[in-house]
């Protein structure tokens, strides 16, 4: 049979392009689309989804915004936000809707409270109605207060029993306090919806310990999440190197500053140790640092191949990372969405499984990543 050269050529091209399409159809390549939903956000820090589809977004400078969904989003400033200490890393941090928000309209906010000479991480609850906060209650203020505008932590999570976890950073210059039970600095704390320390907190019976403390030995925790099965994951910044993901259990010591893979910014040692008795090793260590910010446990119908994995956004590395978990163990740590080359501050998943990312900085954006065939 005579085969025409043009036909062979065309068939070869088709085969090559099909092969290329297969390579590009894996997640993190070109099988998704990226939409910019909102622009001109001023150092956005956290995103929450309201039941009607609108977004609640915090800005580091102290603004809490309700942004309408749809083709022409409007930004509405929520009134009644308390005074925020805005300086360096300090400002308005996380926003979280109560698990029963549709009934009680309650939200939680974390922020830097105080002044230059004395400031601390604070957690409040408030009712959000008609774009205004009311019935504000201070649930927790970290102690002792500090004189640095760095390392506040500030992520909030609500556990299945309704209690709240909050990350509290070490204040940078106070790093040894991360190991001290009479200080909230460098801890994850747990309080109930009234701000009281639950009776089953690990050090609640220790008269020399602050009862809110849930875990110790942290530096500057930027992410906190709880999976549907109740596993708590956290990530935190190391100094120069030593960024970590940890699985958090109450009563555990995560080692900072006694153990770390990192060194000080000026090249000196933080500690001579990378391991020490009674202190836990991280699930993931990033050295050199990537400066991880937020993290989610992926559960959704859109990127099903990532079901049960951790997705992490970062500041310094300007990346989205996927931590492939298999029965709780890390199988792979890879960059995904390579075209996103910008500092990123928050990542969330909506009910459809689409991924939302807040970019960092004075011209922050809300991006939505979804499957092409949506």
């Amino acid at each position, binding site marked *: 049979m005579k085969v025409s050269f043009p036909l062979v050529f065309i068939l070869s091209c088709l085969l090559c392009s099909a092969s290329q399409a297969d390579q590009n159809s894996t997640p993190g390549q070109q099988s998704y689309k990226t939409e910019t939903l909102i622009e001109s956000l001023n150092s956005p820090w956290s995103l929450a989804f309201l039941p009607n589809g609108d977004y609640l977004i915090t800005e580091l400078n102290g603004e809490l915004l309700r942004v309408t969904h749809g083709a022409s989003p409007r930004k509405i400033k929520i009134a009644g936000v308390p005074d925020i200490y805005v*300086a*360096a890393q300090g400002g308005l941090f996380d926003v979280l809707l109560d698990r029963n928000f549709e009934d009680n309209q309650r939200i939680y906010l974390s922020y830097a409270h105080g002044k230059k000479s004395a400031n601390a991480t604070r957690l409040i609850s408030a009712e959000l109605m008609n774009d205004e906060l009311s019935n504000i209650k201070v649930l927790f203020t970290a102690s002792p207060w500090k004189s*640095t*505008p*760095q390392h506040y932590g500030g992520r909030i999570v609500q556990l299945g029993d309704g209690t709240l976890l909050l990350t509290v950073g070490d204040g*940078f*210059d106070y*790093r*040894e306090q991360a*190991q*001290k039970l009479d200080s909230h600095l460098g801890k994850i704390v747990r309080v109930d919806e009234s701000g009281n320390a639950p009776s089953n907190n690990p050090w609640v019976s220790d008269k020399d310990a602050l009862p809110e403390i849930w875990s110790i030995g942290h530096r500057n925790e930027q992410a906190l999440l709880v999976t549907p099965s109740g596993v708590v994951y956290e990530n935190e910044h190391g100094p120069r190197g030593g960024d970590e993901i940890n699985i958090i259990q109450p009563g555990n010591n995560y080692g900072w*500053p*006694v153990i770390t893979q990192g060194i*000080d*910014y*000026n*090249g*000196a*040692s*933080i*500690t*001579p*140790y990378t391991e*020490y008795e009674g202190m836990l090793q991280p699930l993931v260590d990033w050295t050199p640092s990537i400066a991880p910010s937020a993290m989610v446990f992926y559960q959704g119908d859109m990127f099903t191949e990532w079901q049960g994995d951790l997705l992490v956004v970062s500041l310094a590395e300007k990346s989205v990372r996927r931590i492939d978990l298999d029965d709780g163990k890390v199988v792979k740590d890879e960059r995904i969405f390579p075209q996103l080359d910008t500092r990123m501050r928050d990542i969330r998943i909506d009910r459809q499984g689409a991924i939302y990312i807040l970019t960092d900085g004075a011209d922050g954006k809300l991006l939505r990543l979804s499957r092409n065939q949506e």
Partner: protein
Amino acid sequence: MKNLMRILAALIVSVLVAAIAASVFSTQFVITGLQELGVSIPLDVRLKMTVSDLSILQTLLIVFAVCFLVAFSVGVFASRKIGGDRTMWLCLAGGIGVIATLLLLQSALQVMPIAGARSSFGLIMQGVAGAFGGYAFARLTETSQSIQ
């Protein structure tokens, strides 16, 4: 020209002396901070960390050089105008210069750039390191006139 080279060489040595002392002092304070948490740090670990931390010199040398250019100029001026022991003035200049520099950096960065200087005592010891530098500069630049 010969005098200028001598002063330059003295400045380099004084910066080295001060920076090494500052690094060693800082490491001891960091170790003390860990020991106060109950962490065991045997002598061999302390020595290894102290030597390893000399990598901080890459940052300190530049900072101390700029600091001493200003501080020693003031110290020499003061010794000539006010009188008194030249070496004492230069030690004082070196010490105050380092402390002032660290406090300025702390104000700009909003954190203390040398971990071992976070406490008052640690900061004073950084000043002592600066004074060592001042002493080295004084001895290396003294002339028969300045000795009299």
